[in-house]
């Protein structure tokens, strides 16, 4: 990984304060079936979305799910920089970045492997959603910045990106809604996990390694198509398909909020 030589490095003797924090026994579901924030197993958190915040960008959107805060800005369509990529369809460049202060552990300014992978996933998803044939020889740049990672950051990023594209009046086939599910054993599917539920490994009661993972699905609601599916962890086939179906239905329920946000945006113009 390339090292950042231009910024001042932390002193060599400094240690992460999290090393000294008390390890608490984190239990996902209490005895009466509720999670730590009082939600049921398949309850989604409330979402707040707003368009048109970044004045410098062609289009922009801000998405807040629980404590997760994501902002997306879109630039373009503009002339392609290098002339080698002469094509009659447009090009999309995406960047998915966590702000250094967004996660429990400080992120570097140079994109890490995880951020590069998420950028690639975002590019592939948006390539299937934007009508690229209408932008020959042009490129569109999309930047997603996670200001606070409270779980489901990728899902929030998908939704913010599609709203920012609509704000920029770039032709798309549909808007994207997305949802994340944490699978803990064969029985427990935790919808829209928060930070702890997403990242802590080994939450199952009997400590089994199989059927412990994270599934994120992005859906095109009116066309009823899946545009992105990402899963990590060890999941058996039937568990994975159940998790995917649950993800798709949860993502569909986000559609009305996003549509209302866009119609308010049109009325304000």
């Amino acid at each position: 990984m390339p090292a950042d030589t231009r910024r001042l490095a932390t002193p060599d003797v400094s240690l992460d304060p999290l090393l000294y924090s008390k390890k608490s026994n984190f239990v996902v579901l209490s005895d009466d079936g509720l999670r730590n924030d009082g939600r049921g197993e398949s309850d989604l958190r409330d979402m707040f979305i707003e368009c048109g915040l970044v004045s410098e960008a062609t289009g922009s959107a801000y998405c807040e799910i629980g404590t997760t805060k994501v902002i997306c800005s879109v630039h373009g369509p503009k002339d392609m920089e290098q002339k080698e990529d002469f094509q009659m369809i447009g090009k999309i460049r995406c960047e998915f970045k966590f702000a250094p202060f967004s996660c429990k552990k400080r992120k570097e300014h140079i994109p890490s492997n995880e951020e590069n992978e998420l950028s690639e996933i975002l590019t592939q998803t948006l390539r299937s959603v934007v009508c690229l044939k209408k932008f020959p020889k042009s490129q569109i740049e999309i930047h997603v910045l996670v200001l606070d990672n409270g779980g489901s950051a990728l899902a929030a990023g998908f939704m913010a990106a599609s709203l920012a594209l609509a704000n920029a009046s770039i032709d798309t086939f549909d808007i994207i809604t997305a949802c994340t599910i944490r699978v803990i054993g064969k029985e427990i599917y935790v919808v829209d996990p928060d930070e702890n539920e997403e990242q802590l490994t080994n939450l199952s009661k009997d400590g089994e390694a199989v059927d412990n993972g994270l599934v994120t699905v992005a859906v095109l609601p009116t066309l009823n198509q899946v545009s992105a599916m990402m899963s990590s962890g060890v999941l058996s086939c039937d568990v994975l398909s159940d998790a995917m179906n649950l993800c798709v239905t949860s993502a569909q329920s986000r559609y009305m909020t996003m549509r209302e946000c866009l119609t308010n945006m049109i009325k304000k113009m």
Partner: protein
Amino acid sequence: MSSNKTIEMKLPSKRQKNAVQNVSNRMLVTPGDVITEDTIYMKGHGTYGTNIEGDKRVIASVAGVVEPINKLICVKPLKTRYNGEVGDVIVGRIKDVQQKRWKVETNSRLDSVLHLSSVNLRGGELRRRSAADEFAMREYLKEGDLISAEIQQVHADGSLSLHTRSLRYGKLGQGCCVVVSPSLIKRRKNHMHNLSCGVSIILGNNGYVWISPLVKTATDSEAGDGGFDFDKEPVTADDRETICRVRNAILCLAKHSVMLYDTSVQYAYDKSLDYEAKHLLSDDVASEIVDRTLMEIDLLKGNA
């Protein structure tokens, strides 16, 4: 040395939002919404159709208002890039100097091109462009210069070719440029006007409006030499204030989506004389001026 200057600020919640126009009787769509399933309608801008056999749905691809023009269905989006037509007058900024051509930024999807063969040479000579002319390109137009030009050709991918082959077009000198949405500029026969308030404006079709002091030469041109040298005489303080007032009036009209042409700008200027030029930027003053301008325009239409 401290100066007592007051700054006006307003909380976002208290700012007067533009009154919701009569959108209740028009259809608002978001990408993916099915507009109609009737087979008689054709798909226009902002729509698409699945190319599946038997599927005749017209689906919106942008967020906006549906505009049905007879049998054609278009969706008018919030932000439009400029779509050029041959013969449009535009104001653009030089972005790049390349071999035998300039790249001009015109608020369109792709940058426009101004070829060396499409400009007038110094002194109005008609001759073949030599290698020396190529080297002297930067002396005429360099990065950051503003020009007024006409569209010569629209290519298949949407990029525009410009020309300044008239004494009216060329490099722009002292003045002020205002950027508005291209949809607010009416397509008319004449885009260069000398307003009676003492400024001359060029309403570029691409949304760039150029305001400058009155041209002093007898001809229509901004500079009589085909745009090589512009008037370097210092602009008086009164002229500057007039230019500033016209600029603010244009911004008021643009904020309320009023079409811009010489009469509307002139009326807005007249109505704004009651206020100081800098106060035109505040929301209340702007809406008042726009209301009065619209009343005046209606009166004119009523009398005509």
